[in-house]
């Protein structure tokens, strides 16, 4: 029997679409909101999307080294199942079947969670972090666990026990840290988006170094349950994405009250994508002059000034202000963060989990030898500093004083937000630096955090978005800081700039297809 003309036409139409689709649509180049649209109207299946990422990982991971663990086979299998569910109409959300990468300090049940440390080299989490649970509830697909500085202590991902991750814009340079694997994987299109964590800049600074978007939410907005603790009063989990819209979508997924984290804030759920209006007319932007002074690279300053002009053009009201506490912020941060780390990392004793030394003659020696072998030099350095500032005789001079300065920092920000909607600063004083140039000088490494730490000290939300590249084609990041729980304002301000500047259309990592 001859098929009807219509049937034949349809068949060829589909074949044609598929061919053209294959040629025209570069899947890994798409943002998540674009992928969601294509999943929704059946242009793409989850298997096609996941396969595109798996192929990309197989091809490029050897150059970037963003992953500690890849889950390619598991991801493909899950994608097939989700496609079947979608076909039978049994699907919960339009995010179902989108892949994601997860920083390796977030617990994933049944999968290794190493914190890039020898201490947790073979640790298999017995439960999922709340944020991971949220992703699973929406049927997102975990492509793997991403590299980081050991226990999130560092600004270059060079302190990972396993490997050094490269910056996709220049493979000889660092991706920033500590969420360097997450930022590099998004920039190199090995994952469409990723989760990171930020204690003093660990989402925003690598996002800035890799030319992607990184959001550190208000302290308390996202549950920390299942995040391996570094400094509990500063840590927050947040998105690293290709654009601001994706950051809002991922924040929707992970924000919310969780009774398993007593610092998680109980408030109604918001839809952050609704805040993305792109209009900044009348928005009051404060420019803290201390963040544009000594130590800030000239080219970084130049791009930031151009960004400020763009905001003015868009109708924002921009004014220079003074944040007098800027000069104390970094020292305050390192005292508090190390003190908390020394206490948090006390749990690693080689008994219940983690590395266990082979040689010991008693329990005390078992603890000591296991910890000394399991932790890397930077982690030990910070534990020692933290123990020092908490020890009797030094407590008042360092720790207590830092906690008082913390109050001062918060007050100064409160004062600024009485007058301004958002504050604008560079995310980092420099672009990504060459590997090996700072890893032996801890203090110099700490200076990479100088623009970001005060946001954690005050518990505020901050976002980094790319605002240009320097003469070596290395991306430069701009940080927007908001008042507590005012993520909408910084997201919208970031979105307005992104729409106007169109960074992704103009600049690409040299690390190509």
């Amino acid at each position: 029997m001859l098929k009807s003309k219509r049937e034949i036409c349809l068949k060829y139409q589909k074949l044609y679409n598929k061919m053209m689709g294959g040629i025209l649509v570069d899947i890994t180049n798409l943002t998540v909101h674009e992928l969601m649209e294509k999943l929704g109207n059946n242009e793409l299946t989850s298997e096609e999307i996941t396969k595109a990422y798996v192929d990309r990982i197989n091809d490029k991971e050897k150059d970037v080294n963003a992953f500690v663990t890849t889950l390619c086979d598991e991801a493909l299998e899950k994608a097939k199942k989700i496609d079947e569910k979608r076909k039978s109409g049994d699907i919960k959300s339009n995010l179902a079947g989108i892949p994601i990468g997860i920083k390796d300090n977030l617990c994933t049940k049944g999968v290794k969670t190493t914190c890039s440390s020898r201490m947790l080299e073979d640790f298999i989490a017995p439960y999922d972090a709340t944020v991971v649970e949220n992703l699973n509830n929406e049927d997102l697909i975990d492509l793997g666990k991403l590299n980081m500085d050991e226990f999130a202590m560092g600004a270059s991902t060079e302190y990972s026990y396993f490997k050094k991750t490269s910056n996709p814009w220049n493979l000889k340079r660092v991706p920033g840290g500590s969420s360097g694997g997450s930022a590099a994987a998004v920039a190199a299109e090995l994952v469409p988006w990723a989760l990171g964590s930020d204690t003093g800049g660990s989402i925003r600074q690598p996002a800035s170094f890799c030319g992607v978007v990184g959001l550190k939410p208000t302290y308390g907005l996202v549950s920390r349950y299942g995040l391996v603790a570094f400094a509990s009063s500063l840590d927050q989990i947040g998105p690293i994405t290709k654009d601001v819209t994706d950051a809002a979508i991922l924040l929707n997924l992970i924000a919310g009250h969780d009774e398993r984290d007593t610092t998680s804030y109980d408030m109604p759920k918001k839809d952050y994508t609704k805040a993305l209006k792109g209009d900044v007319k009348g928005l009051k932007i404060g420019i803290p002059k201390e963040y544009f002074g000594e130590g800030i690279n000239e080219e970084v300053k130049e791009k930031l000034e151009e960004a400020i002009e763009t905001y003015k053009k868009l109708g924002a009201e921009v004014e220079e202000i003074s944040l007098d506490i800027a000069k104390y912020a970094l020292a305050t941060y390192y005292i508090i963060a190390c003190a908390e780390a020394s206490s948090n990392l006390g749990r690693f004793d080689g008994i219940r989990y983690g590395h266990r030394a082979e040689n010991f003659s008693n329990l005390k020696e078992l603890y000591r030898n296991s910890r000394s072998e399991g932790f890397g030099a930077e982690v030990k350095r910070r534990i020692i500093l933290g123990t020092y500032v908490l020890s009797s005789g030094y407590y008042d001079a360092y720790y207590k004083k830092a906690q008082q300065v913390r109050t001062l920092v918060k007050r100064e920000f409160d004062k600024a937000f009485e007058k301004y909607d958002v504050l604008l600063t560079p995310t980092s004083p420099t672009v990504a630096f060459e590997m090996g140039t700072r890893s032996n000088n801890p203090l110099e490494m700490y200076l990479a955090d100088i623009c970001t730490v005060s946001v954690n000290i005050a518990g505020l939300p901050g976002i980094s978005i790319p605002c240009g590249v320097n003469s070596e084609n290395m991306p430069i990041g701009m940080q927007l800081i908001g008042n507590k729980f005012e993520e909408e304002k910084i997201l919208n301000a970031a979105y307005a700039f992104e729409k106007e500047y169109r960074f992704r259309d103009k600049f690409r990592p040299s690390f190509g297809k």
Partner: protein
Amino acid sequence: MANVSKEELLHIARLADLNINYEEIDNYLANLQDILNFAEVVNNANTEGLEETIGENDKVNVFRKDEIKVFEDNKALLQNAKEQERNMFKIPKVIQ
């Protein structure tokens, strides 16, 4: 200027349950001095009469119902222990 002695460093390391090898001492000592000298800038801040900020939401006390929740997967909890016996973590003998 912070002035930490070798003995003090070793004492702190002992408190933190860390060994520091003889050849590492100088390096750790120099790093610690550097960072402490840098950290001393906080002493320039005027904090007279200021309260300490301990956490972000420290004014709030969070209560939940006092209910027992059973974590059923005991095996998963013990799977990471290097030594275990009869569903318990095993450690070296403490009392001789």
